[in-house]
């Protein structure tokens, strides 16, 4: 511990005299406690009512979550923030999903003491909303939690209530989760990067539990991440490269991309892009520089001949919020056979903090996420800053970039949504603009009591008041009549 920094903080802290308590915390706290207990008692009554009446009303046969997917499946044109108490995938499986949503607000990030600080909303192909919960950590769908190409599974490092594994795969059709072992059967320290296009393998990063060295500047422990390919059927693990860098310092938007046939994988290592085959054999390496990156998981063109890149025009170091928001990204291409620059469909430059390409719509349009910075965001530089991180992002928009110019917003989303993942089959088939409906409040998780209880208090207090008033009215004549009994 540095005595100097301690002394500095102490010096700042000593500017603060002991707080003046305007109200006696003991009296106020105990009063709140009595009120809370009364509310809890009343909530039991309210919950009992809901439990009796609710199922027949809200869990009726018309629950669309159980309807089979049809050929009219589509990504909804509009999404909303789910209810804070939205049911989990494990409670009521939504079936195959169209979208994953992550973000802020009570619906997408609760409070650990009461709820889960990390949440991801699964938007089913019928528009239903279900939740995946990740206590204690903010998670980013599309980067930390990945939807399989057919929308049936998600893969993540862990999920609340799921088994412990190197990675955990959750089936959205039945809510079950399966642990995937890592190299040498490890059950720790994996991070998913991308699904193989056929959905039968997952590219992941493996990193050690304990630091292997120390950063020369920050003196923080280093956790070198190694890319590995995990076959879901055989559970075999194939290392692809020695390392792609410290796991906490990676630019997650540009980690890797599979070729459309799944035979080749582009991997970012610092300012270089490596193309390897599924056995990890190197095919070529290209140096992109610090302003140019692999465009994202969907960077390979549909015919597999080009790899899209994004190049930053704008602020790279010491960027305040306005500078981050006014960055511009140009899309370029590398020849997938040689790694050299090549031409490709020209799309308009995109203004935003970051641009991450998810895939190609109908084989022609680039589908991408455009990121805007969180209010107050400030980047010192590319090291230690993540263009698409949860804390850095203030808003995200799913867009399509048409060759020759033109940008289209594909999903109308509220500002609280900070990350998305889209089912690849719907994306490539161009199935956007589907019907949307607001999240249904039921079925719900038990955390709904935290809302129901305060809401029920006024009603139940009124009922209690009425009962007391009637009791007094009934009691009054008897008390009045009592003296006459003893004095006939």
């Amino acid at each position, binding site marked *: 511990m540095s005595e100097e920094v301690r002394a500095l903080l102490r010096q700042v802290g000593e500017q*603060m005299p002991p*707080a003046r308590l305007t109200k006696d915390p003991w009296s106020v706290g105990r009063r709140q406690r009595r009120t809370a207990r009364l509310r809890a008692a009343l909530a039991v009554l309210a919950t009992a009512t809901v439990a009796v009446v609710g199922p027949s009303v809200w869990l009726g046969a018309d629950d669309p979550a159980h309807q089979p997917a049809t050929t009219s499946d589509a990504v909804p044109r509009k999404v909303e923030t789910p209810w804070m108490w939205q049911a989990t995938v494990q409670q009521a499986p939504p079936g195959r999903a169209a979208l994953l949503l992550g973000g802020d*607000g009570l619906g997408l990030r609760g409070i650990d003491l009461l709820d889960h600080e990390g949440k991801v909303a699964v938007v089913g192909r019928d528009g239903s909303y279900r939740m995946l919960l990740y206590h204690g950590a903010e998670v980013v769908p599309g980067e930390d939690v990945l939807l399989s190409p057919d929308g049936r599974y998600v893969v993540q490092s862990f999920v609340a209530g799921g088994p412990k594994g190197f990675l955990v795969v959750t089936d959205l059709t039945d809510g079950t989760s399966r642990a995937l072992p890592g190299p040498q059967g490890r059950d720790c320290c994996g991070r998913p990067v991308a699904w193989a296009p056929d959905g039968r393998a997952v590219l992941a990063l493996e990193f050690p539990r304990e630091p292997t060295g120390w950063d020369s*500047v920050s*003196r923080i422990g280093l956790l070198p991440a190694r890319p590995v390919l995990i076959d879901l059927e055989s559970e075999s693990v194939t290392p692809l490269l020695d390392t792609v860098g410290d796991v*906490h310092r990676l630019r997650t938007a540009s980690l890797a991309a599979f070729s459309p046939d799944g035979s080749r994988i582009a991997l970012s290592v610092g300012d270089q892009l490596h193309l390897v085959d599924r056995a990890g054999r190197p095919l070529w390496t290209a140096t992109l520089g610090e302003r140019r990156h692999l465009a994202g998981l969907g960077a390979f063109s549909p015919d597999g001949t080009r790899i899209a890149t994004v190049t930053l025009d704008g602020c790279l170091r010491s960027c*305040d919020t306005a500078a981050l928001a006014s960055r511009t990204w140009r899309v370029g291409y590398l020849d997938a056979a040689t790694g050299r620059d090549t031409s490709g469909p020209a799309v308009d430059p995109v203004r935003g903090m970051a641009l991450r390409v998810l895939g190609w719509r109908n084989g022609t349009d680039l589908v991408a996420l455009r990121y805007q910075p969180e209010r107050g965001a400030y980047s010192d530089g590319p090291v230690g800053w993540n263009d698409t991180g949860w804390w850095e992002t203030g808003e995200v928009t799913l867009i399509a970039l048409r060759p020759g110019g033109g940008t289209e917003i594909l999903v109308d989303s509220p500002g609280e949504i900070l990350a998305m993942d889209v089912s690849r089959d719907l994306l490539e088939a161009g199935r956007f603009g589907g019907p949307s409906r607001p999240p249904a409040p039921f079925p719900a998780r038990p955390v709904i009591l935290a809302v129901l209880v305060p809401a029920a208090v006024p009603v139940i207090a009124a009922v209690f008041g009425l009962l007391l008033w009637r009791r007094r009215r009934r009691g009054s004549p008897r008390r009045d009549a009592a003296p006459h009994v003893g004095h006939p």
Partner: protein
Amino acid sequence: MDPEESFRAYVSARIAALSRAAFLLTGDRQQAEDLVQLTLTRVARHWERVIANGDPDRYVRRSMYHQHVSLWRRRWRHVELHAEPPDVPVADTTADTARAIVVRQALARLTPRQRAVLVLRYFDDLTEAEAADILGCSISTVKSQTRAALARLRTLAPELADLVTSASRKEA
């Protein structure tokens, strides 16, 4: 000692330290007082359970840091943002005071969780594991937040770079 007596004794003994920690977290006296008031009120609600678990400091710290971070994320307070830290009138220009002001301004531009991590690790002198327990996150999150906070401090207050770098080195 009955619960009320023990609570009042605890408040009397710890209010100065809690106030200083709250000030480092919020950067504002009024908000620090509000945070202390709110925290102690919440603690009073569960005081018997808090003291039954042993050291009340752990629960109180956790309550204070969680409340601060979560309220900030929900835009409970509307902070006026500046591209650069606003000028603050300085009456005393001695080196220590000036340095304290630099630190305070730099702290104000960190995220709430980064501030919380610095306060827990450097002011309250907790281990990474203890800080992770209080913040309800993993040790690696504490490490990454500490790294980010120190890096940010170095940028925001270059005059402190030597101290902050030295802190990182010694910490390692």
